[in-house]
């Protein structure tokens, strides 16, 4: 196995790395690029803790090799903030609703919620539950997460109206 040079855009910045072909994308993000906001819960594609956006689409970074992300655009939880040190509106809604306890699933949930709202600005409860159904949370029982996503959607609509 020989290492390969790759280059990808992570949260708007071009990042280069030299990686073994078998290294997963989540390991690249966490261990090589130091972006530890993306978490690992199962490494077999079930829990969603490792969710990121790849070219805007939510994917499980434990199921993708780092080399597959070569030339692509990645957004992690660290990239969801609007500006420097700020938090985005969905993050703020999560805080407002206490949509977490231990915070371990939270980055993945934010990614799932973010992707949903990008496609559907006015999701109903069923659609929100569907959108986060691939992300396991052991702490909250999901109710406050669903409320947070709904709150963010409502606030965005108010902001526009």
């Amino acid at each position, binding site marked *: 196995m020989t290492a390969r040079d790759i280059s990808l855009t992570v949260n708007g910045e071009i990042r280069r790395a030299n990686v073994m072909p078998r290294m997963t994308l989540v390991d690249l993000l966490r261990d090589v690029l130091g972006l530890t906001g993306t*978490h690992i819960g199962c490494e077999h594609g079930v829990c969603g803790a490792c969710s990121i956006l790849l070219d805007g689409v939510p994917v499980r970074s434990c199921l993708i090799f780092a080399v597959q992300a070569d030339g692509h655009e990645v957004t992690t939880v660290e990239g969801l903030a609007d500006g420097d040190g700020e938090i985005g509106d969905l993050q703020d809604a999560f805080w407002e609703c*206490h949509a977490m306890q231990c915070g371990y699933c939270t980055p993945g949930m934010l990614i799932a919620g973010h992707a949903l709202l990008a496609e559907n600005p006015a999701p109903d409860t069923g659609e929100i539950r569907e959108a986060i159904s691939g992300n*396991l949370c052991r702490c909250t029982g999901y109710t406050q997460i669903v409320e947070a996503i709904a709150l963010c959607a409502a606030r965005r609509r108010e902001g526009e109206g």
Partner: protein
Amino acid sequence: MSGHGANYRYVSRKRRTKEDRRFIAGKGRFAADIAVPGMKHVALVASPHPRANILSIDATRALESPGVHAVLTGDELAAETAPLFNGLDIPEVKWFPLAVGMSRYAGEWVAAVVADSRYLAEDAAELVEVDYEPLPAAVEIESLLEPDSPLVHPGHGSNVLVRKTFEWGPVEADFAKSERTLTYRARWGRSSTVPIETFGVVSRWDPIREILDVWASIQMPNYQEQIANSLGIPTNSIRVHNDVDVGGSYGVKRGIKHTVITAYLARKLGMPVRLIEDRLDNMSGGDAHGPDRLFDVTLAFDGDGTIRSMKLRAIDDVGAYPGRGPLQLGKPITALVGPYRLSSVAYEAISVTSNKTGQVPVRGFGQSPTNFMIETGIDLVARRLGIDRIELRRRNLIRSDEFPWRIPTGTEYDSGDYHAVLAKALALADYDALVARRDAARAAGRLAGIGIAACLEPGGGNNIFEQLLNEKLEITTFVESCLMRVDMHGHVTAVMSTTTSGQGHETLIATIAGEELERDPDTIRVTHADSLEALPTRSPVASRMAIVLGGATSEAARKIRAKMVRIAAHNLGVGEDRVEYQAGTFFVRGEPARKLEWNEIASIAHRQFHRLPPGAEPCLQEFSVLQVPGASGQLPNEKKEIQLYPCFSFQAHIPYVEIDPGTGKVEVLDYAIGHDCGTVINPDIVRGMIVGGLAHGVGAALYEKFAYDGDGQFLSGSFVDYLLPSSHEIPIVRDVEHCTPSPRTSLGQKGSGEGGYLGAPAAVASAVNDALAPLGISLSELPMRLCDIEAAIHEKRTERNG
């Protein structure tokens, strides 16, 4: 507002939590995020056999593999360390982090490989050659009691680890007096809390300073003491970093064996060593399974539904290595008769060992299975007598004017209004409409059911029941502490001494300190002292932090406030009794112009010794080390009676389910819950705890099982085989609060971390049985998985048709 009349500024108010800020930004600091320079990585070699002698381990090829530094075996580790803690008095049952001579369950770790990366460590782990001699395994729970069962620990001579019988109150007389009896079985399957974050630990040994630094995803009492005992180093050479965020625990994050492996290796190799479980390590070899329990119960009652007494036998399969697991048979003694007015109870507690993964404390410490057993019995009595399930509960629940209520085991319940909470839950569920919905569904040919369950959540963690199972455990001190400082600028910092795993302790402390000091909680900083700096703690177990840590916070804050009043009085030239304090200002009663501001007092305390009252200690720093309130501090008396936990929260659960008769699939379509945990500190946190615990309980009721086949082979090592409920399985939960403050705590608070999980399994089981009742089916084994329900329906139909 909660708190019954108490007009709080911050307590019970909706306020954002302190902790969430870092998590939404992706800036939590979890064990796997800790990167210590030069850190090496462990991969584990696990036994594939349920029970086998280990004949030899050959690490030659593994050691030649690239980047490998060491291969550690059980023999080496056992020679260099002492066995891990056993809760029971069973000296011949020895637990080491890696198997020694014999592997006792499929998945048990037999060797640890250290390499430059986890990838390289795993490559090498595959090259470790272990020669096993497979043996028949001890698996099925009742067979473990048989004399011819294979012995898990041959030196112990039996698979029974402890067997104790207790009788509290006039059991035989109550049985003789009662008109009816009913005998039933209830089975609680092996599941656990299974946090999304696995256990992880990094250990670093500094030979110059002689300090072992440990960063771990830990939640357990006496962690550093256990590390010290095992490694044979002083406790004050161990620095556990309590500021590591723990990604969920609910009792199970107790990776003592992982810690000993890394700490030993770090010292031996002179390199920091990290072990992060992967999901398979966690589920099969992490020794983090929960209770696995069989109950045989007889209830004695009258025709009007009055239940007088219970005879109960519980067998708990703790797996191969007991640790603290078996003590989970003791905690239920705290609320052994639930919220009901039984006047006597007989309890036989049997802990058995098997060739399965080891058991650890799980949310509620054995109370959830016990509550399921009790509520199953109440439903069965109702069915037997033809009395409505709710009415039967009403007749037996302790009444609000009867508190404090002493149960037969000697524990006094502090306060409550169970009938009011039940009534609120029924109103929230719109019970009559729910019944109509169920009946309409039934009329349309569907299987539909409503569940009813009550549950008591003991809080506070006065664990003297341990002594009832192991006389040598003479421990009666169960403290939490808080250290508080006001610095020279007047800023408040409070120090806690444990990790936190989602319970919101920083918010708890800031809110209570803010309330007591009339300072904005957002301005109060809360830090986690490491174990060398820490004040005494029993760790966040047993629904105890709001009660004991909250109490210690109140105490420390009240001391600070009293001292500031004293300094103000001295400087205002009046007696202390004439000084009033309000929201940052100290003034002379009736003369508000004669005043000193908070910051001025802080400055005087820190900088102006000449302005301090004579004899006053300079600066502003106070602490409180608080024994669990309401405890006698004594050991049980000769009748084995003892006041255990001080506070008792109460919940009433009402789920509605429908079942697909073809597949057996249960859908929980609605869930209403009424709860009373005394004064609520932060409503969002309490609600999250209740709903989250409830979801966890739905998992235990319907989906989650660590399954083994008849030979002891482990079948549930991934999230594909062990099913955690997703947002599809958990409905939007509606809750209603009631508040009966506890007379035993600083602000009337009680515990709230476990109740959801204590009530939901019983409630969901009750709903499933209600749905299946028209078919004449009654199930009493959890989990009630789709395949189990489908099989029961199929069997019934075949019976009828045949």
